[in-house]
C-alpha cells in the first residue's frame, strides 16, 4: 500500500507536529539580516542574477520571506514555528513564549476548566504540541520554571481528558460538536470516535424502515409485494418480505 493503514485512519503525531509547525510564532532575532536596502531598491532583480549577494538572500516558498530579510537584532518579528526552531538551534534567535504558555496564562485556563465542567477552555488548537516542542527545544526562553508549566499542562490534559470521557458517553449516529479541542487531542480520539459513530450510524440505519410507505402503516395490501422491499441502501438482500419479527 502506498499509504500505511494506520495513516489512512488518522494522522501520526509527527504529522500533527508538522501541521502545527506551520503556525507563526514571534521571535527575537539575534542577528541582523536587514542590509543594503537602499542598494536593492533601485535594482530590478531577475532570475538571471547570479550575484553572490543576491543569491544568498532568503527566498522562501512557504512563507513571506520579508520577515527574514529584515531581521534586526532584538527587534521582534514573526516567523513560522519550524523556522523559529531552526534559527533557535543555530542560536540565531530567541523564541517569544506565547502569553498563554505562562504560569499566569495556564492558571487562567485551569480555572476555566474547573469552573466549566461541560466546556473546554479556549486554549489554542495547537497548545499541546507547541508546549511540548517549546519545552524541549526552547527551554531557556521561558521566564517561568519549566516544571511548573509542565505540571499545569499535565493538569490541563487530565482535566480535559476527563471531560472528553464524559463527552464520549454522548456519541451518537448524528453528529458531535467539539469546540476548543486541540488537534492532537482530536487526532488521538479520531479512530475511536469515528469507528463507534460509524457503527452506531449503521445500526441505526438498519433499524429504520426506509420504504416509502413507512409512515402509512399497512394502508394497502398491494405494498407487501414491492413497496416494503427496499429497506436499506446498504444491502440489496433487503428484497425479502417483512416477516414481522419484533422485540
Amino acid at each position: 500500500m502506498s499509504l500505511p493503514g494506520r495513516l489512512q485512519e488518522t494522522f501520526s503525531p509527527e504529522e500533527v507536529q508538522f501541521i502545527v509547525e506551520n503556525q507563526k510564532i514571534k521571535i527575537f532575532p539575534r542577528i541582523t539580516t536587514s542590509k543594503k536596502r537602499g542598494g536593492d531598491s533601485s535594482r530590478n532583480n531577475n532570475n538571471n542574477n547570479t550575484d553572490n549577494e543576491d543569491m544568498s538572500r532568503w527566498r522562501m516558498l512557504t512563507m513571506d520571506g520579508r520577515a527574514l530579510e529584515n531581521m534586526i537584532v532584538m527587534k521582534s518579528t514573526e516567523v513560522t514555528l519550524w523556522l523559529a526552531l531552526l534559527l533557535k538551534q543555530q542560536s540565531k534567535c530567541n523564541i517569544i513564549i506565547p502569553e498563554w504558555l505562562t504560569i499566569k496564562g495556564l492558571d487562567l485556563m485551569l480555572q476555566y476548566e474547573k469552573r466549566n465542567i461541560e466546556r473546554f477552555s479556549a486554549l489554542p488548537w495547537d497548545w499541546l504540541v507547541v508546549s511540548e516542542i517549546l519545552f524541549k527545544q526552547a527551554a531557556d526562553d521561558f521566564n517561568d520554571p519549566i516544571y511548573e508549566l509542565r505540571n499545569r499542562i499535565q493538569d490541563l490534559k487530565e482535566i480535559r481528558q476527563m471531560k472528553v470521557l464524559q463527552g464520549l458517553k454522548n456519541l451518537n449516529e448524528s453528529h458531535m460538536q467539539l469546540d476548543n479541542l486541540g488537534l492532537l487531542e482530536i487526532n488521538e480520539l479520531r479512530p475511536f470516535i469515528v469507528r463507534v459513530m460509524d457503527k452506531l450510524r449503521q445500526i441505526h440505519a438498519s433499524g429504520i424502515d426506509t420504504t416509502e410507505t413507512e409512515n402509512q402503516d399497512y394502508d394497502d395490501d398491494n405494498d407487501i409485494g414491492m413497496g416494503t422491499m427496499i429497506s436499506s441502501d446498504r444491502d440489496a438482500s433487503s428484497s425479502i418480505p417483512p416477516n414481522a419479527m419484533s422485540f
Partner: protein
Amino acid sequence: MDVDIEDILAELNTDSTAVDYSGNNNPLSDIANTNVSTLYNSSYPDDKNIPTNKNPPGVRSNTKISAEQDYSSLMTLWRNERCSPELLPYPHHLMSRMLMRIQDQLERLEIISMDFMGQNSNTIDNSNKPINNNNMLPLLCMEAELERIKFIIRSYIRCRLSKIDKFSLYLRQIEQDSNLKSLDDLLSKDEMIYYQRHSEMILKLFNDTTLKHLPPELQAINDTTGTISMIDEPDWNKFVFIKVIGPNDKMLNSDPLLKKDSNNKFFYEVIIPELEEDVELFIDSIYVMRYNVIKNLLLDGKVILI
C-alpha cells in the same frame, strides 16, 4: 516522485519557469502571473484567499498567487485528502506551480552552494552544527523548507495513490458512466497513467491466476447486481472531523448560505437526510459529521477536514 516535473515544465511557456523575483518591497513572494492562472480545473477552490475559484477551466485571469498562499492551500488539500473517504479532485494548476517553484528553488540552491564551494575550499557541512557564516543561514533554511514541501507533496500523492488503488473499479465505473472528462479532472496525468496501468496489471493477475479457470459466468469482478456490489464505493456517510471556515473572501454577510442565529453568530444549515435532522454548523466550530452532509461545503472550501 510520481509527478514528472519535466512534463509540466515542457507544457508551460518557457517564460513561466522564470519565477518572477520582482518587486523591491516584495522581493520574495513568487508570482505566477503567466499562463498558469486558474487555480483548479474544477470548481474546487484551492485557496481560500482567492475569490476566482469559480472560473471554469481554461478561463485566464491575472490573479497573482503567492508561494505562501499556494503552500497553505496545499496543506489544506493534503489534510482534506487524508481525511476524506473519497478521492478529491486533483489541483492541476496549483501542483504545476508548486513543482515549478521547487524546480526553480533547487536550481537556485545548487548555484548558491556552488558559490560557497568556490569560496571556501573546505566542504560545506549543512548539518545541525551552528553556522558561523551568516550567509549560509538562508541556504540552510531554504533547504529545510524544501524538504518540508517535498514531504507534503509525497504524502499527498501517496494518499491519493492508495485511494486510486482502493477504488480502481469504482473509478472505472465513473469513467464508463460519465464522460472521460470527469476522470481527467479527478486525476493528474501521471495518476491517470498509474491508474490505468495498475488496473490492467491487477486484472491480468486476477485472470491469469484465477478467473480464467472459472466458468465464464463466475468471472465477473464488477458485478453490481448481486446482494452485495463487487465494486467498493467510498463510504459516503463516513464520519469526518470538520472545521467550519466560511466563505473564501471572509465576507460573511455576502454568503447566501450563511444564516444568523439570535446571537448574530453565523452558521450553515445542513440536513442529515437519513435522520431528517437539521444541524447548524457555526463558523469556527469543530464537528464530527457525516461526509456526505458536508461534501458540498468542503468542495467550496467553506469547511475543511481536520
